[in-house]
């Protein structure tokens, strides 16, 4: 209930998907939730190393998330803590949520299983207006007016 799991099949070998998930160049190409640019992507891909990614959404708002790599098994598994931050500092106290990604080789490439758990913290943060959901609201309204 407080976690989210998504499974996706990707026509690329696990090592390429792993690179896309962990290298700054890769992250810059997909991390933003809409067409907005990724402004900062830093990764130190080892257990105990940290990542920091900052992106701008099409509505102009900027968001940053950081976390620590908890498990790094190249090219099959990544687990990391996750929180929204501003200039490297947490926007609000509270437990970190957790992201886990498993990459399983299949005939056509890779089956990716994505799990974001301990989401009650993210919901709480969002509800105080400091997550991304305010921006998503604006974006959805913007897209709705454009397609209307």
């Amino acid at each position, binding site marked *: 209930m407080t976690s989210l799991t998504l499974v996706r099949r990707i026509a*690329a070998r696990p090592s390429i998907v792993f690179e*896309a*998930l962990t290298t700054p160049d890769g992250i810059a*190409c997909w*991390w933003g939730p809409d067409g907005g640019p990724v402004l900062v992507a830093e990764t130190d891909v080892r257990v105990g190393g940290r990542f920091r990614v900052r992106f701008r959404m099409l509505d102009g708002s900027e968001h940053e998330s950081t976390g620590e790599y908890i498990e790094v098994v190249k090219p099959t598994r990544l687990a990391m803590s996750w929180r929204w931050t501003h200039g490297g500092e947490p926007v609000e106290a509270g437990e970190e949520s957790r992201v886990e990604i498993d990459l399983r080789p299949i005939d056509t*490439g890779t089956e990716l299983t994505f799990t974001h758990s301990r989401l009650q913290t993210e919901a709480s943060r969002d*509800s105080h207006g400091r997550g991304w959901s305010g921006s998503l609201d604006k974006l959805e309204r913007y897209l709705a007016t454009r397609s209307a």
Partner: protein
Amino acid sequence: MVKFQGSQLDRTFAALVDPTRRAILARLDLEGSVSIGELARPFAIKLPAVMKHLDVLGTAGLITRSKTGRTVTVRLAPEPMKEAMDWLRRYERFWSARLGRLAAYAEAEEAKAGPMKTVEDTP
């Protein structure tokens, strides 16, 4: 209004963190209204502990209680649950869109890398 919705979402998710409370909600969802005695029966915990869970659920607005004679029955209040589910769906769309972009990028990289090899490239 936004503030109110926010604290409601907090309370809903805080209430949902506990597996016993989730089990209670699941049962209410299946059976409609259930008396507190009936509700306590399947759980390996004492009635006062169940009452505490019901208090949390009540404060979060997830259940309503009504009394008929000596029997108190509990019923699911769907609105806050709906709000929490809406939030989760938004979160799902957010990540789903990202993973779509990740897949497109990885597939383009795969195309550049040439035919898939049985042995991984050495770095």
